[in-house]
C-alpha cells in the first residue's frame, strides 16, 4: 500500500484515476482507519487530501458557506456565523462520535461513507446543500441527495473527490434543526434522524420548507409531502399533525433489535414535529 499526500486537487484526482487496484480518499479517517484494522481490508493507495489548499477551510462567498472536505466537525461549532445561519446542520455534524472523533471526522466523509444513519446528512439535504466534485474531467456540482445511492454506495465516479460542501445563501427568517433518536444519550447511531429547514414570511407563515429523514430507508430521503403539509401555515396543531403523519408514512425502515418498523415510523413523525418546532422558533416564528 502507498500513502500519498498530494498538494493539488488535480494531482489527487490523477492519483485516484490512474491508480491500479483499490484506492481510497483519506480525510478524517474515522471510518477508513477502522476499516483498515480489518484483516480482510485491502488497499493499494491511500490519498490524503488534507494537504490540498482550502481543504481545511470554511469560507463564505456571496452568502454561501463552503466547507472544505478536510474540515473536522469540531470546527463547525467553532464557526459562529455558520452556527447562526445553519444551527441544524452544525448540530447534526456535532452528534457524530466522541470528542476525539469530532476532532477528525468530516461531513464529506460522513456523506461518502454512505451510512443510511449518517447524522450530518439529513440536515444537509434539508438545507439543499450541494457538493463540489473534482474529477479527471474537471469539476461538477451535485445535490447532497444524489450522492448516496444505498448503504455504503455513492454515485461518485472513478477518480472523483468531493472537495467541499456548499450551504446556499438563505433569506432572512430562515433556520433549521436536526434531531435523532438513539437508545443511549451519547455515542450511538441514529435509529431515526430528521432534518427540517424552514423559511418564514414577516407574519410567521412558512413560505418554504424541506424535510429529510435518515436511518429509515436505504438512503436519506427528502419528504416533499411533509414539507407541503406545513407550507402556508404557522405550524399550528393541524399542520403539525399532518407533518408528523407525512413523515411516518414516508419512513420505510428495517426491523431490528434497535427498533421495530412500527416504532421507527412513529418516532419519525414525533421527531419531525419537534424538529419543525425548533426550526420554526429559531427562524423567529412564535
Amino acid at each position, binding site marked *: *500500500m*502507498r*500513502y500519498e*499526500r498530494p498538494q493539488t486537487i488535480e494531482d489527487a484526482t490523477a492519483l485516484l484515476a490512474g491508480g491500479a487496484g483499490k484506492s481510497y480518499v*483519506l480525510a478524517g*479517517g*474515522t471510518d477508513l*482507519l*477502522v476499516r*483498515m*484494522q480489518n484483516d480482510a481490508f485491502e*488497499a493499494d493507495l*491511500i490519498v*490524503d487530501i*488534507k494537504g490540498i489548499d482550502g481543504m481545511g477551510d470554511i469560507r463564505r462567498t456571496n452568502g454561501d458557506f463552503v466547507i472544505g472536505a478536510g474540515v*473536522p466537525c*469540531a470546527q463547525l461549532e467553532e464557526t459562529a456565523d455558520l452556527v447562526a445561519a445553519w444551527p441544524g446542520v452544525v448540530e447534526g455534524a456535532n452528534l457524530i*462520535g*466522541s*470528542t*476525539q*472523533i469530532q*476532532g*477528525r471526522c468530516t461531513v464529506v466523509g460522513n456523506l461518502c461513507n454512505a451510512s443510511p444513519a449518517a447524522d450530518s446528512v439529513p440536515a444537509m439535504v434539508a438545507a439543499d446543500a450541494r457538493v463540489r466534485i473534482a474529477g479527471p474531467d474537471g469539476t461538477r456540482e451535485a445535490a447532497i441527495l444524489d450522492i448516496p445511492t444505498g448503504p455504503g454506495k455513492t454515485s461518485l465516479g472513478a477518480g472523483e473527490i468531493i472537495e467541499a460542501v456548499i450551504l446556499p445563501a438563505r433569506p432572512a427568517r430562515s433556520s433549521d434543526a436536526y434531531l435523532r433518536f438513539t437508545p443511549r444519550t*451519547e*455515542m450511538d447511531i441514529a435509529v431515526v434522524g430528521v432534518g427540517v429547514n424552514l423559511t418564514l414570511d414577516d407574519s410567521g407563515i412558512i413560505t418554504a420548507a424541506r424535510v429529510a429523514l435518515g436511518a429509515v430507508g436505504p438512503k436519506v430521503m427528502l419528504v416533499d409531502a411533509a414539507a407541503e403539509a406545513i407550507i402556508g401555515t404557522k405550524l399550528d396543531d393541524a399542520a403539525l399533525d399532518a407533518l408528523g403523519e407525512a413523515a411516518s408514512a414516508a419512513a420505510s425502515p428495517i426491523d431490528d433489535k434497535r427498533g421495530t418498523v412500527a416504532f421507527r415510523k412513529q418516532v419519525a413523525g414525533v421527531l419531525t414535529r419537534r424538529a419543525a418546532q425548533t426550526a420554526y422558533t429559531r427562524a423567529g416564528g412564535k
Partner: protein
Amino acid sequence: MSSIAVSTTINDDDVEFLCQPDETLLDVLRNRLGLMGAKEGCGTGDCGACSSIVDGRVVCSCLVLGAEVEGKTVETIEGMADGSELHPLQRKFIEHAALQCGICTPGFLMAAKALLEKNPNPSETEIRFWLAGNLCRCTGYDKIVRAVQDAAAEMRGDAA
C-alpha cells in the same frame, strides 16, 4: 511497502521517524518512539485510551496514520508533567483516586487537558459529554469528573 520518513514535533521535541504507510500514530508512538503512555484499548476509536493531541485537537491516535503527522505538533501524556512536577490534572487524579488499573488514565488526562484549555470552567454535564469517548471500567466515572472539576478550579485560581 516502502517506509515513509516523517518529521514532526512531539512534546516540544523535533522528532523524525520512519513508518509504514498503514501504520497508525499509536503504533509509531509505542513501537518506534518508546512512548508507551498511549494505550491500545480497542484500536477502533471507541475507548479513548490512546488519546493524544494533534495540532491542538484531542484525537484517537489509533485513527491517525503516522504519516499524517508530518509537520504537525503532537502532545502525548509523556509531555504533561513539567519534569518531576505533575500537571494539576495528574495530581488531582491521584488525590481523588480517579483511577484503579490505570489503563484509561493517560487518555482521560489528555482529553481533560484539551477540555480545560478550551473551557476553563466546564459544568459537570460538559465534562461528562466531553469525556464520553473515554471508557473506564473501574471508577464509575464520578471520581474522574470530580478530579477534573477540582483541577479546573485550581487552574483558574479559585480557592478550594
